[in-house]
């Protein structure tokens, strides 16, 4: 078996996990006899669930059309939240023992509350993290919430959840993030040809798979990638931005690349945003998990947080410059309010920095790929014309 075959074998296995998270969870549960806990995006510290001996699984959007979920949430909620309630109503959440969340997104909370009604036998625990990061008293408040989580998980999982156990989980997750970031760095540098779909598989599977098992796959994959073929140099380099909470459909990524592009970087949640920041490895693990929450927003700013000293748009322009991307496609999940609110700030900065960009709104049902292809091609024309301008002049 050559290197490419080995890469495909690993990616194939991870693709199976990414496309069937509940199947993976059921098998893991049967094998270990331990609990599976659904955690909701975007700031949940999975390390605590792992340290409690359970499987933390970042609940994914399901591709199925919304049916029974329509009786729990209106159609003007984002696809992710509507999919959550639909999965609950169609009994796809049987594998989970409980759900935990820390994020205060109004739509997510509406969905989580509907979940409590629809599947009342499964606990849904909210440790609400204060979204405003500026106040001197916020870190102490976040620490309390981390301690609440620790207490609740220890009780629910009947685990000690000692400092050492948490520290071990932190180390495992840091290692996982570090390896994924190495792959990102290889992609940015053009040394490897990894598609958007494949990159998504790597990150998405890390949200589902037991972290130790995922690390084993990455341990095997990384050296293989390092010796692989580089990305073609003649393609237009793009940065993908946004798409909070859930992954954009892989066929959308395929279409963008089919147009003659290569995705060199992103700040998608199911992407670099998820793996960008490590938890401090030393000292009190509860303090470290508290610190991580703040560090995440300074490393890759998010408009779901409120922080006067941090600007997503500046980060975006900086990232584009660093990766050599020639344009940005902003992927906005329809009805995502924090993203809708912040979009004009991103647009202003991209225009100021003369970075061509395109906004694509995605929906749970219906992806007008051919119409979107025309828009992507128009963006690429703009980029190519800009490249030619010095020659034409």
């Amino acid at each position: 078996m050559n290197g490419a075959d080995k890469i495909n074998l690993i990616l194939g296995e991870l693709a199976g996990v990414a496309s069937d998270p509940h199947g993976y969870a059921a098998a893991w549960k049967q094998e270990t006899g331990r609990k599976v806990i659904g955690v909701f995006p975007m700031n949940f510290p999975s390390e605590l669930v792992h340290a409690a001996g359970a499987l933390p699984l970042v609940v994914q959007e399901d591709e199925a059309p919304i049916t029974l979920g329509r009786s729990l949430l209106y159609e003007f909620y984002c696809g992710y939240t509507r999919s959550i309630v639909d999965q609950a109503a169609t009994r796809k959440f049987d594998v989970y023992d409980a759900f935990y969340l820390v994020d205060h997104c109004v739509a997510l909370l509406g969905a989580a509350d509907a979940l409590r009604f629809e599947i009342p036998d499964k606990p849904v625990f909210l440790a609400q993290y204060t979204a405003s990061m500026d106040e001197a008293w916020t870190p102490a408040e976040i620490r309390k919430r981390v301690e609440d989580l620790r207490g609740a998980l220890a009780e629910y999982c009947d685990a000690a959840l000692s400092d050492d156990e948490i520290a071990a989980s932190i180390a495992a997750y840091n290692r996982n993030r570090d390896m994924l970031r190495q792959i990102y760095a290889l992609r940015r540098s053009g040394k490897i040809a990894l598609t958007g779909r494949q990159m998504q598989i790597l990150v998405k599977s890390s949200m589902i798979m037991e972290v130790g098992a995922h690390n084993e796959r990455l341990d095997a994959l990384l050296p293989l990638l390092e010796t692989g073929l580089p990305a073609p140099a003649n393609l237009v380099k793009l940065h993908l931005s946004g798409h909070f909470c859930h992954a954009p459909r892989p066929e959308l990524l395929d279409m963008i690349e089919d147009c003659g592009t290569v995705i060199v970087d992103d700040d998608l949640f199911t992407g670099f945003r998820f793996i960008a920041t490590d938890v401090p490895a030393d000292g009190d693990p509860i303090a470290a998990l508290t610190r991580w929450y703040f560090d995440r927003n300074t490393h890759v700013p998010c408009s779901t947080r409120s922080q006067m000293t941090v600007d997503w748009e500046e980060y975006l322009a900086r990232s584009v410059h660093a990766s050599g991307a020639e344009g940005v496609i902003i992927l906005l999940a329809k009805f995502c309010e924090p993203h809708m609110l912040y979009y004009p700030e991103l647009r202003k900065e991209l225009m100021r920095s003369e970075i061509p960009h395109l906004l694509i709104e995605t929906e749970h049902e219906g992806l007008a790929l051919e119409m979107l292809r025309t828009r992507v091609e128009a963006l690429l024309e703009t980029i190519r014309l800009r490249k030619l301008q010095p020659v034409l002049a």
Partner: protein
Amino acid sequence: MSLIKQNAQPKLVIPQTGAPANRLVSTRSGGKMVKDYWDRLFSARERGATVVWYNGAALNPIFQAAGIEWCHGEAFGARLAAMHLEGPAQRMGEEYGYNQELCSYARTTLGCAVLTQKEAAKYVNAGDGADVPDIPSQEVLASKLPPPDLFVNAYAGCSTGQQWDEISYRLFNKELPFFKVSYPLLWGNKADAGYLRGEEWMEASRYVAAQIHKLIEFLEFHTGRPFDWDALRESMHYIKKAAQLRLDALALCKATPTPAVFWDWVASIAPINFLPGNQDLVDYFAGVKAEIEQRVIDGVAALPGERYRLAFDGIMNWNKVGWLANQFADHDAAVICGRYTHSSFWNEPHLIDEDDPILGMAQHYLLCPFNHSTKTLGELLLRDCETYGIDGVVFHATRTCRSASNGQMVMAKMAQARGIQTMVLEGDVADASFYKDEILMSRLEAMLETIDVRRRNF
């Protein structure tokens, strides 16, 4: 209204009186008080006053005692929508890049912020002898807000509320002081959690109260003046009295037929939400209560042909208040209570300690009607349905407000389980384009017919 036909039973003919509604006369003075308030605020710059733009909770007693003038963002958005003047601000927001699916309160007030900056620039440019930007006359009101000196955000129950002010702060070039009060959602992890009870309630109350104290320090720093605690106590004394009068008047509407309806209470939202705490406020609600008491004595109904008693759940639809009031009246449907009017706005005045009001104020901020778990919301709805003898509930599915729409479908199931009819009205808080009038009418008629059938069968 269509007729119900059933085999082997006599035809049910529902006479519809559609008699004109008796709107309360006393609420008219509230309209004048509110207009005077805004007119005075519009001249704040000329008077050299310090102005705060704030969103969310009724922090106005704090600002009043700090000696600064306050502009409540949603209130101004609601006022524009109620006057059908929201268009220019919303168009400006759209031009700036805001998607129509975004909270229409936010779109309206962010559009106002852009217009306010334009208006301010006009004065600066005029002073410089430069060209004056052309602001069409219809945009005048939307651009009249005095530019802020500082921002305060205090939005419970809605993550968008805080993010919206983060954007307002950026629209003004990140140059103005900005204070944020954060609220926990009253979620109820623990077994003892519930409305006004449990460990989580008390912990959240203390957390918010501590932030209010910090807000006061922030205001002292930026005004350069010590906070006037006596003024706060005085203001809260009046607000507590006014709030109790409002509750007493609401309770009088248990009578059948009801002496006042939800739409009358909508007219009283602005006074209790953001007008200064003073004797005028007390006099206003004393007047409302007196009129309702007299109606009870005289047997005067809000709807002379009252046949149905309904509840309204969700946030107001400011563009359509008058239109909706008429439609329900035409069908002899008295909308008697609602989440927005009855479970909000200093609705638990016993919590306020006039000598030390901060904790009770913090608790009211937490009691925002969109800051509860669905379980609590359902329990409050069922309580009101029982209190007011409600036949059916109208849920306002507010297109751009997830906060007000959360839990409604579950609450509807809870009401249905108690034999209460429900319907969904599709609309929006401040964007008229989301209304579907004909669908509303056919659903309303269907619900009222079902109520008739049930009455007949049971």
